[in-house]
């Protein structure tokens, strides 16, 4: 027989830990079949260490192949699977079953404010449009020395560290009550990504301040903090927005 190490069950293997049944209620919408979204229940056997994404996979792979959701990395770094879990925006792959109250069903639905395409999938284009609109790239006219990096002190680098963590998952923007109203607001994610460049000492442009100093820009934020609570990367989103507001008032970063 094989001598490979994986022969033995891993520590968290099913033998050692009790499984239990969880009811998952998913807001389904199959285009062409459903006229309106509807709630559908599934019962799945789960381990406490499983994630909500595992539950969705189990349903898709064992019960209903038509269940549709996005996912890729499965550990919270690609930003594919933001969804509303028990009324809050979360990444399915970062939400452990044991952290939810499993005596009650788990409600899962698509994020709000973007056009629903199918089940848990929404059209992300409007979201990326506003990201692209803040000119999220380094703008610097001065040339660094040929073949050399631009110099930046560790303090200057730390200034915008928080907002470089963004994975563009849209959990924040689609949790914002202002974005829900008409979807015209740039939304926290775009502002976070503008912040990342506004406060980068290497960047020489004020254009983003100008873009966000507008009707649908930072002034629409009502500091509801939903974005900060939703961000799976722990970015202090509302803080970043506040800093951009101050920068606009000052006229410079």
């Amino acid at each position, binding site marked *: 027989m094989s001598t490979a190490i994986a022969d033995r069950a891993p520590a968290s293997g099913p033998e050692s830990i009790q499984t239990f049944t969880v009811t998952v209620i998913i*807001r389904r*919408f199959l*285009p062409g079949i459903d006229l*309106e*979204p509807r709630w559908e229940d599934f019962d799945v056997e789960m381990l406490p260490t499983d994630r909500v994404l595992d539950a969705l996979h189990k349903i898709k792979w064992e019960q209903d192949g038509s269940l549709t959701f996005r996912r890729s990395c499965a550990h919270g770094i690609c930003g594919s699977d933001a969804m*509303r879990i*028990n*009324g*809050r925006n979360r990444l399915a792959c970062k939400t452990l079953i044991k952290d939810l109250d499993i005596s009650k069903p788990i*409600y899962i*639905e*698509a994020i*709000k*404010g*973007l*056009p*629903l*395409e199918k089940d848990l999938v929404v*059209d992300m*284009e409007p979201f990326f*449009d506003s990201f*692209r*609109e803040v*000119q999220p790239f380094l703008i610097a006219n001065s040339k660094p020395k040929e073949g050399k990096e631009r110099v930046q002190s560790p303090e200057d680098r730390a200034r915008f560290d928080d907002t470089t963590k963004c994975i563009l998952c849209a959990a924040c923007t689609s*949790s914002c*009550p202002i974005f829900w109203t008409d979807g015209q607001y740039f939304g926290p994610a775009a502002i976070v990504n503008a912040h990342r460049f506004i406060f980068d000492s290497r960047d020489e442009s004020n254009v983003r301040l100008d873009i966000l100093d507008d009707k649908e820009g930072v002034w629409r934020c*009502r*500091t*509801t*903090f*939903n974005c*900060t*609570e939703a961000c799976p990367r722990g970015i*202090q989103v*509302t*803080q970043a927005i*506040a800093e951009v*507001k*101050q920068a606009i008032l000052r006229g410079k970063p």
Partner: protein
Amino acid sequence: MSDKTAGTLAPHRSRTKVPEGTLYRGREGMWSWVLHRITGVAIFFFLLVHILDTALIRVSPEAYNAVISTYQNPVMGVGEVGLVGAIGFHALNGIRIVLIDFWQVGTKYHRLMFYTVLALWLVLMAGFVPRHLMNVFGEYWVG
């Protein structure tokens, strides 16, 4: 910038409606905003009426007193408690918002500040309500 992606902006994507889902379970930040909005609107409509009724002093003392005396009945008295409650919350929370916006660590302590707002609001109401109700209902109690 025109970097619209050719493929993904294709107009053939039908735009389906966003379904009605569960109520978003926001926390202190969201609920304080909801309250701030509701109280703001309530105060605004009160203010409209209040300006009009005060304008009656320009008409005649009789007219003004006639209208104002309706404020003095117990039902309106209770309404005034609501009004002051709304203004109190809106004002205290307004200060909280200003602190979030302008105080370096405001965003860090926003939750703490929300509970402070609630506490101060309770103190305010505790000071105002008995006193006010005594004034309003005073004649019944006395008489």
